[in-house]
């Protein structure tokens, strides 16, 4: 067999199988995995928030925080900072969606 014959044989395009529902099965699994991941993420955030609140309630940090809260709530720089954070979050999300 010559080099050219071998090259020609090897260079023949692969025979591609027909879809026959393969793409649909992949998309269904992706959707299932995504919703499971979102659920787990939600549970993770919930557990983290509960742990944070529990830590605050059980440690002296909780008393310090409650003493500071009235001052923080009335502070203009804190309010501006919080507004900027919230705005950045929503603008970032909208930008990513586009």
């Amino acid at each position, binding site marked *: *067999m010559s080099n050219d*014959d*071998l*090259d020609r*044989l*090897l*260079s*023949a*395009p*692969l*025979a*591609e*199988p*027909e*879809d026959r529902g*393969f*793409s649909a*099965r*992949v*998309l269904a*699994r*992706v*959707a299932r*995995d*995504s919703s499971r991941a979102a659920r787990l993420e939600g549970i993770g955030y919930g557990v983290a928030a509960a742990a944070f609140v529990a830590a605050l309630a059980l440690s002296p940090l909780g008393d310090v925080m409650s003493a500071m809260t009235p001052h923080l709530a009335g502070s203009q720089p804190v309010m501006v900072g919080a507004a900027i954070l919230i705005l950045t979050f929503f603008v970032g999300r909208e930008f*990513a*969606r*586009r």
Partner: protein
Amino acid sequence: MSESELADRVARSGDVVAFATLVGLTQGRVRAFLLRLTRGNHTLADDLAQETYLEAHRKLAQFRGEGSFAAWLYRIAWSRFQMHLRGQGPHTDELDDSIPAPPCDPGGRIDLERAMARLSSAERAALTLCYALEYSHAEAARIMDLPLGTVKSHVTRGRERLRALLEG
């Protein structure tokens, strides 16, 4: 819209329609590649292809557009196939002499597939990437995550073994 642009869109916004389009555009090539790696085992090739797309969907943000999207998919497919081989235990990738030698009709697709099945998986992958899928040796080395010299020797050795098998 190109495959890379579609991938970018999925990574940015999780666009399901764009991902469905990508799967539809590439599934034939990816499954054909895996079919050759698995020596024609359709069920295994489809399972590995499905795993490939799930991993691609999870890691799309890591696709930087260096090289084609298809090359990135082949890279994942090759790594999934290797994980499968490792799970099968040692010696699963040895040259398989139990597969019948191709009959004396060189030049046909069936003969090529039978002869290919008797090569090592690395030789099959290197030859398929460099000839049927038209990647350069350097691109094949990136896909297979091997040094360039190793891929070149897989191609040379695979070619010679294939020629010997096809000539009977």
